[in-house]
């Protein structure tokens, strides 16, 4: 089964063509890495897949369903979740509340104007579980403003995981992390079960190589090379445009 299928996707900002006829097929359970130097159009591609940008032409399908024109929030309800390269969290709330909001987003309870959210034990329990899976349960009650950058990166991932996605989009989950923190996040991502398909963006090739099974190399909005880890690394064009050799 194909988890994500992008066909002939194009997007231009004025005269600048940021996505040029991109085709992408990610099989269910796959770990796909999308790499490319800064400005290659990775995040733009992601934003179109996630529904935050509308493509000029082309189609996007998720598990066989055409989602090209579907609102971003509806894609979430179909099983897509994403993290942001620039941390986008609720700075006035606790870590627990951040994750609870992620869970609530998929629950019909979110329209309820009278019940007490803090007493919805099943939501709170599941939020704790998600936090435990990223190793943050001991500081669940801490206000986000008092957490470190590395902890916030993990909250981003916990929020995406809490939504039990079928397709997980990770936008540079290692950005700004120290070597130790990267290793922690790496281990965390390795533990995600196979029923979750993962597409990850990273511009720094070596940190994510270990994780990826297939790699797509994007350059100036175009897919240049695609294949297994070894194929892409050995491809002379990769070295040319990306590794700068």
């Amino acid at each position, binding site marked *: 089964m194909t988890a994500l299928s992008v066909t002939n996707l194009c997007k231009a900002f004025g005269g600048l063509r940021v996505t040029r006829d991109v085709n992408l097929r990610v099989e269910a359970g796959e770990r796909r890495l999308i790499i490319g130097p800064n400005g290659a159009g990775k995040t733009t591609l992601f934003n179109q897949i996630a529904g*935050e940008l509308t493509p000029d032409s082309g189609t996007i399908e998720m598990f066989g369903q055409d989602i090209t024109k579907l609102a971003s*929030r509806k894609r*979430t309800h179909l099983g897509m979740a994403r993290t942001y390269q620039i941390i*986008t*969290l609720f700075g*006035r709330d606790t870590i627990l509340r951040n994750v609870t909001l992620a869970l*609530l*987003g998929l629950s019909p309870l979110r329209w309820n104007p009278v019940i007490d959210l803090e007493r*919805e034990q099943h939501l709170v329990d599941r939020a704790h579980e998600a936090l435990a899976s990223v190793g943050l349960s001991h500081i669940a009650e801490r206000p986000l403003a008092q957490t470190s950058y590395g902890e916030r990166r993990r909250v981003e991932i916990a929020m995406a995981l809490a939504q039990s996605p079928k397709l997980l989009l990770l936008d540079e989950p290692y950005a700004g992390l120290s070597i130790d923190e990267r290793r922690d996040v790496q281990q965390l991502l390795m533990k995600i079960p196979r029923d979750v398909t993962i597409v990850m963006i990273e511009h720094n090739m070596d940190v994510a190589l270990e994780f990826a099974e297939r790699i797509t190399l994007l350059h100036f909005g175009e897919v240049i090379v695609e294949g297994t880890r070894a194929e892409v690394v050995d491809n002379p064009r990769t070295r040319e445009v990306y590794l700068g050799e």
Partner: protein
Amino acid sequence: MSFAPAGFITVRRVALAITFALLLTLPFWVGNSYYINISSQILLYAVFALALNVLVGYGGLVSLGHAGLFAIAGYTAALLLDAGHGHFVADVAAIVVTLAASAVFAVLALRSTGIGFLMITLALGQIVWGIAYRWASLTNGDNGLKITTRPSPFGLSLNGAPAFYYTTLLVFVVALVTMILFVRSPLGASLRGTRDQPRRMNALGYNVWLIRFFAFLFSGFWTAVSGLLFIYYNQFISPPIAALQTSAETLLMVISGGTATLLGPIAGAAILVIMKNVVSSYIERWNLVLGIIFVLIITFMPEGLVPGVTRLWRKGWSTLRGRKPEPEARKTGGHGS
């Protein structure tokens, strides 16, 4: 809040109980009907300020058009009473019409947020003022509309100051309870989420627009109720009620007390109503005072009085118990944007 000292919560409960007891017995210890009426005014404006705070404080949407909605409720009731309808019909219709107007306001203003939202609501409020002022054949223009009776639910007359006070208090308590429920509810949490990270909320599966729309209607409902209290209190309504100044005054109640708290708008309403009555009895220059307070609060105490005092109180409480004060949460800018 989970990180407040445990003693603080108990103290707050006791303070709330005392306040409530004082409010309940107010006509007996105040005596003078002038002061009872001022208390009614405070409570009715507190309902209005709480309604506005839903958008300003929890939704991050600053409306300068709420005076328009407030006036629509008052005018609708006055016009229907004038046409010979009963109080029940007039009141229900006033709320329905105001809710419909809120929906129109929301659809137009929610095309934008921030400054755009503020400008559109200002313009919409101004339209209501224009109708009230210029469409004289309907609204009696500058002369305004009078109503002659207050309703008497279950045969109880509301003509006396204490009777009207208790009605207002009852409405106020109901409003406050719905606010407390709303703030703790999932929908309330969602609304705050759309204030802080609308993009993220969308990605998490929330319908940001619809959440804001509901918040606008909720706010519009209590604005309508406070508008009804106003028309029954004054038994008169005229175009200045719909003007920008009324919106600005109410906004000042919200921000002077502290946005996104429930106590803030209530304290703000009390401060402003008392000040307006005191200042007006000495000098004519209420607008000048209003403007200066506005400028001072925005420049020097943007957090509002209630959060400011709460912070000092917590600090004092901790010092009293020989503890170090809790570290303050850093301002929201701590994360990337």
